[in-house]
């Protein structure tokens, strides 16, 4: 009984999550924000992504994704302290919310599930 109960909630979760299924770029951004814990603001995210993933990231596409993820509730943000650099403008630091974390986990689980289901013969091992 207990087992089946857990399973149903899981299913409901998937059903709800699938509505907000993460895009590939969104997933990478979320992960990078998580990696940079506490230091995740626009430029740092771009640097980290470019360094780790060996791809160029335009400020426009990153920022739109950040705002979208924040709007969906996967990210939260707050403004930092005023500094003398950056023309006196504050930084906006992003953190991954619980919902964001859940979304990441679901994605990861789905991937793993797929990996695990690959028959050995498929990759010729």
């Amino acid at each position, binding site marked *: 009984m207990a087992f089946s109960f857990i399973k149903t909630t899981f299913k409901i979760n998937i059903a709800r999550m699938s509505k907000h299924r993460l895009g590939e770029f969104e997933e990478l951004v979320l992960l990078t924000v998580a990696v940079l814990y506490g230091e995740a*603001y*626009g*430029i740092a995210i771009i640097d980290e992504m470019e360094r780790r993933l060996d791809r160029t990231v*335009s*400020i*426009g*596409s990153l*920022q*739109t994704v950040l*705002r*979208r993820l924040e709007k969906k509730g996967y990210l939260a943000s707050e*403004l930092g302290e005023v500094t003398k*650099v*950056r*023309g006196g*403008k*504050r*930084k*906006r630091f992003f953190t991954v919310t619980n919902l964001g974390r859940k979304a990441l986990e679901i994605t990861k689980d789905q991937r793993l599930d797929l990996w695990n289901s690959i028959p050995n013969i498929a990759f010729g091992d």
Partner: protein
Amino acid sequence: MKNNQSNHPPKLLLQFFRWYCNPDFAEDLEGDLYERFERRRASKRPGLAKWYFAKDVLSLFRPGIIRSLCPKSFLNPTVMLRHHLLLTYRQYRRSPNTFLINIIGLASGLACAIFIFLWIQDEYQIDRFHAKDQRLYQVMQNYPIAGGFETTEYQPGPLAQALREEFPEVENAISVCPPLGSAGNKGVISTAENQAKASELYVDPEFFEFFSFPLEVGDPEWVLKNKDAVVISKKLANQLFPSPEEAIGQTIEWFREDVTIPFTVTGVFDDIPAQSTLQFDLLLSYPSLAEHSQHLRTWANSDPYTYTLLKPGVEIEALNDKISTYLQEKVSASVEDPNYIFTGTAFVQPFSDRYLFNRYENGRPAGGRIGYVKLFATIAFFLLLIACINFMNLSTAKAIHRAKEIGVKKVIGAQRSSLISQYLTEALLITLLAAIVAVILVYTLLPQFNGITGKEIAFRPTPTILIGLIAIIAFTGLLAGSYPALYLSKFQPAKIFKGKLTRGLREYWMRKGLVVFQFTISLVLIIAVMLVYQQIEFIQNKNLGYNNERILTLKQDGNLRNQFPAFKNSLEALPEIEAVTTFRHDLTGDFGSTSGVQWEGQGEGQRIEFGNLEVDYGLMELMEIQLVEGRTFTPDFATEQNKIIFNEAAVKAMGLKEPIGQKIMLWGEPREIIGVAKDFHFESLYEKVKPCMIRFSPNNENILVKLKPGSPKATIRAIEETYHAFNEGLAFEYRFLDDDYQRLYASEERISLLSRYFAALAIIISCLGLFGLAAFTAERRAKEISIRKILGASAASIVQLLSKDFTLTVLLALLIGIPISYLLSQYWLQSFAYHIEIQPWYFLGAGLLLLLIAWSTVGIQTLKAAKTNLIQALKDE
């Protein structure tokens, strides 16, 4: 400095970013952009930093970052509107003076604009009511004269038929012919019982297909098919017959130039509206006229007007060339002289354009009445602008009183847009109130306006007029409100509450500049008024080379034509009459012309266009036209038909040394020159005196009666009795020659009168504004003035202190206005061949006048300020 500059991101791009970026993201994003820029500056290739910056800014320009187009408004619009209205009411209750100044200024500006709008609207409706207006064209002919072309509307008779049959572009073409050789003269229409004077047009049967004059009775396709058909106006039908229906089928007799012809009434048309330039009482058959007149069937003469309906999409330029070539070929071939080549050209002009574009230069339409339309539209615009400037100036000047209100609103969270909407609402409300006053003004003054303009404009709420009215009000309201709205809403609350609301230099100059602008326009208008007045005086008092005073003219109509000698004798028997004679023309622009003169010593191919005046015995004496040498026509000689008189200009143009006694050939017949007349103006003063010949021709249409000095009333009654003895039942119609002459300059007179009103208004409105500003300055400087007085300043020195500023403003306006009006005056005067010279005192006088007006306006205020009670101003701090 340069280095410093390049250390910052490009300003324009940054501004662009700030403009489009969602304000919620703006700060951190700008910081990011900045950081990236700085990092790139520090990299190996700092020169590229700007380019990358631009790339970043552009890459952020995408949905999700761009600010939302419609700002979220949580404000209930009706509540806000009520709030705006309440604040407006309180604001003006506090300063009723400002309210009055605004209302008076805006209302008079608006009333002017509405008047001018009505007038322009009416001008544009002239001749445009015909159903086929878009395709209805009139053929115009350019007739070669010395030094260019003379453009006429008269065409060879066969042209219409040729267009109809040989030009595929033409759907149809008709001839319309005014009464030949006696323009403006009326004929007499009579039945067995009644008779009336009337003017006719000879038209082709398809006339009603071209022009939408509705028929009261009759079928437009058939009424003119018969050659003995006549279509008469409703007015004429009611005059001659019991009713329009009963007129059909009746026979009338048409009497004109010694001939009486019977016609049968086949139709009755509604009276012609005032908005038609074609005016006529009856229509007769042109084909039947052409049958009787040889000259209507040759290409060598030009008499009728030719109208054509073009097929849609015709290339006008190509058609013009085609008609020109065709015309040249036909006219050249029809003249017997084999060497003669006609070089005139033709073009088609939209019929409804002919009213506004009625002046031609080098054979092309070149403005005309449209110039006045543009002029008045400009004046309307400037008057509105002056009135709006008053509103702007007073609103911004009074801003200090409202600064706290603005500050509180902003602190509570009012957005700039809602403040802007508040001040715009205020301006629109005031404009609306002013518009109500203006509409009442227009209603009451419309008869006077119609009197000045000579129109019959009605002020009814037709769609066009309503739309125009709304447009004018909206334009004025937005224009007046825009500057104060933008200016007031810009105040920063922190500064307001710290009391640091300093008035920037820019704002000071803005307001100064607006006042300068107002007074510049006033000055230009004052000078224009003086100039037009002087020029008209000049024209009216210019020695024309003849005397047109106390000359009464009447037309030789009815029985006068065959009994003229008897009529003349009866008139001359009257004691108050000096002389009676006849004249084919009228010395106010109506004259024939010909180039068919050959003289000894004429150069090869030299052709001169001569004015052709036909006079009776005694005319030159009666008009007091001076002779340089020779004699005039007298009954003492039997063969005056073979003689001719030239004016000085003609003799000079022909280069004749001893003209008297010489023979010239006129239309192939010899004529002996018997006299040379001193140049006199037989056209308006727009034209230079042209070469002109005077021929003898007895019994012409115009009867000229010279009266003895004294009251003309009794004499006119005596003439009328004599007239009725010959023409029983016909209306006695007469004119005075000098009135006709004045009528030549009717449009100048109108402009003169109107511009006087407009100038006065412009000055009044400008002064109202100045008055308001002066009052405000005096109020604001009340403390300063009081302290000065305590320290011993005299009232005079205080008046001087306060007036200095305004004097400088007006002087600046003079400096700008004088060159502008000088150029404008020269431009206008050049259209007259004879005009006054521009005198410096016009400008000095106008400037002084303006300065005096401004001083007296400001003076009242400053004097009041100088006499204020010191305690009152200083007691509260």
